[in-house]
């Protein structure tokens, strides 16, 4: 579906990016030392750092992906909200303080504080790099998705704009400006989503006139001409034009309200959900019709009336439909994903480096608490944003990622511009955190400690900047190559790998005195290789990355389900314990 590129969106967006860059240059003037570059001198206040956590964490996948998934399939997107937030409990009660006490700039420092081993630093740096890259791809893809409707530019242009801007932010100022960018973005996101949800509740639910809408079609002729419902596409004949003229709204509406009223009027937060459950909702399914059934390849968008009470149960989306079946492997797949979300948060490199920007362990804890409050509040909002979009009459049935911005457009053009600009800054902020984490791993851990090439701080910063440029460039290429992949699907993989590689080593080091150097190295490498290998050979990868049919993919894959965490996290723990016991016994004999 095509969208107007709106002039006001363009203005708001440019102002945003310009002010973020200006701020970044201004704050970066003073950050010349390694302490300033990697850890903002350890002098960021806990409140600012806490909101910056929210900024880091509420990535494009959280905001666009979850809202879009709820808007299309109901409850399932909310499962991600629950899992993403639950992971912070691990960060708060298990990881936050010890990791601040042990480390200096990076997660490898903390793991290595006890042993002073090059092997640990190298293993931790490699896992940081792999996870950063896996997490960078979906963020870059998200940037391309956003820029298309917002500025009317192609996907690759969005990826390039984000890549270049981020690399400039990271190269000029490091952690100081990254922290402030995240703080600003985190607060704006929460504030404007609150405004949006208030407007949703105030609008309530309403049934548009004209009954259940008709199916719509989009046909592509051999010469590339696009037909909408059999007529050439134009500004007055878009996918939703006929719906809008007959019913006053486009895709996504209510067909019956409780008590058969026409509109509910303003509703409270609980009453809104209750009213939704007793309503009937028109959702849309897309069916591809190919020759010889029709003359030209056609996408048919067909209305499906669903009960609100069914939409507010898990298992309606393709990702989670296994929950409603009988196959155990499908259920284990989903449980494995939910375990990865729970354990992965506290293992993400760009979250971990934020523990070194505060002065001490107490501030690390306080900022985690602030982060949890802001993030938790936001995730409550996601359910309303998603359901609001589902009934807004403004959905794009071809692109779920656009649901939240289009919901804002159903209220006002200015709000649309602001929400889109915030979503774009969201991508910007998360990407800069990731690039910085990766650059730190390369310059401080690999070049500085493993190879011993870089000794003094000024050189470390210089190398980190070169590494940022390389990482930023690599992320841009991958973002363009993987344009077709689903954003939240890729993020799930990043969580699986982070949890499998990093969590066993972190937890055991903090809580088991018998942990040895070799055990830590073994756990990281086994967790990393096992989860990465599993992901790359999974049925999902066969189907969505390598392009085999679903049936072939299931047959070819050597692993029973797609999400590895359920197996590879325990495997990491086992490896660590086994190697530690063996190496300790050897040391005792010697």
């Amino acid at each position: 579906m095509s969208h107007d590129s709106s002039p006001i969106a363009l203005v708001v967006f440019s102002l945003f990016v310009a002010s973020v860059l200006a701020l970044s240059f201004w704050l970066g003037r003073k950050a010349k030392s390694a302490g300033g570059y990697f850890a903002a001198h350890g002098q960021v206040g806990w409140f600012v750092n806490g909101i910056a956590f929210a900024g880091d964490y509420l990535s494009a996948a959280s905001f666009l992906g979850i809202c879009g998934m709820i808007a299309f399939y109901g409850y399932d997107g909310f499962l991600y909200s629950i899992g993403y937030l639950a992971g912070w409990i691990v960060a708060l009660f298990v990881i936050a303080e010890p990791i601040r006490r042990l480390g200096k700039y990076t997660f490898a420092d903390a793991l290595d504080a006890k042993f002073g081993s090059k092997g640990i630093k190298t293993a931790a740096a490699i896992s940081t790099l792999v996870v950063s890259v896996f997490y960078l791809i979906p963020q870059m893809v998200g940037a391309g998705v956003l820029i298309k409707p917002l500025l009317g530019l192609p996907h690759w242009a969005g990826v390039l704009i984000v890549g270049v801007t981020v690399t400039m932010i990271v190269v000029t100022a490091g952690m100081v400006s990254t922290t402030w960018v995240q703080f600003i973005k985190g607060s704006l996101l929460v504030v404007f989503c609150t405004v949006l949800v208030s407007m949703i509740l105030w609008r309530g639910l309403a049934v548009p006139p004209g009954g259940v809408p008709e199916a719509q079609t989009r046909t592509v002729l051999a010469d590339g001409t696009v037909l909408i419902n059999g007529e050439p596409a134009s500004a007055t004949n878009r996918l939703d034009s006929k719906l809008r003229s007959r019913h006053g709204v486009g895709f996504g509406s209510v067909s019956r309200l409780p008590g058969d009223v026409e509109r509910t009027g303003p509703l409270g937060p609980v009453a809104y959900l209750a009213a939704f459950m007793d309503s009937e909702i028109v959702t849309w399914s897309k069916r591809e019709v190919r020759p010889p059934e029709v003359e030209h390849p056609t996408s048919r968008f067909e209305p499906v009336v669903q009960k609100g009470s069914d939409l507010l149960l898990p298992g309606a989306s393709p990702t989670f439909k296994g929950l409603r079946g009988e196959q155990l492997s499908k259920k284990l797949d989903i449980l494995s994903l939910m375990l990865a979300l729970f354990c992965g948060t506290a293992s993400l490199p760009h979250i971990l480096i934020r523990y070194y920007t505060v002065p001490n362990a107490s501030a690390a804890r306080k900022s985690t608490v602030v982060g949890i409050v802001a993030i938790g509040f936001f995730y409550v909002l996601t359910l309303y944003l998603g359901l609001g979009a589902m009934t807004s009459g403004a959905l794009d049935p071809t692109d779920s990622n656009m649901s939240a911005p289009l919901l804002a457009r159903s209220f006002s053009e200015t709000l649309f511009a602001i929400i889109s600009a915030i979503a774009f800054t969201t991508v910007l902020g998360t990407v800069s955190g990731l690039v910085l984490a990766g650059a730190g791993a390369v310059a401080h851990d690999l070049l500085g400690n493993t190879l011993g090439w870089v000794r003094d701080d000024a050189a470390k910063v210089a190398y980190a900047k070169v590494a940022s440029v390389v990482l930023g460039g690599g992320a841009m290429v991958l973002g363009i190559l993987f344009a077709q992949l689903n954003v939240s699907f890729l993020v799930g993989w990043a969580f699986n790998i982070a949890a499998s590689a990093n969590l066993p080593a972190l937890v055991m080091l903090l809580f088991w005195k018998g942990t040895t150097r070799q055990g830590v190295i073994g756990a990281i490498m086994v967790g990393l290789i096992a989860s990465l290998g599993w992901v790359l050979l999974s049925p999902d990868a066969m189907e969505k990355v390598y392009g085999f049919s679903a049936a072939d993919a299931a047959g070819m894959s050597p692993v029973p389900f797609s999400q590895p965490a359920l197996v590879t996290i325990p495997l990491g723990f086992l490896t660590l314990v086994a190697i530690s016991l063996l190496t300790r016994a050897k040391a005792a004999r010697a």
Partner: protein
Amino acid sequence: MDDRGASQTQRDGGRGDAARSSAAPPAHRADLVLFAVYFLLYAGFMGLTAFSPETLAIRVIGGVNVAVAYGMGLILIAVILAGVAMFTYRHGDGSPTS
């Protein structure tokens, strides 16, 4: 990566570190109890989701079903536990080290 020599010299220093960080077990115990409580609630929710979908459909408070109430509950409880963590934290434990 042969760093046996390096780790040999570091081992004593390592023991010192371990002794220092094990100096604050009571606060840690409270943390781990809160963590265990939350983990059980989360696991319970996932168990229902995977193996007892009919329970999730039951309507509870205010006409909202168990799926929504439990899910929202998990988010609110996380926020409440985070608030509790502010108070259980014993000041002076987290002595600044850098």
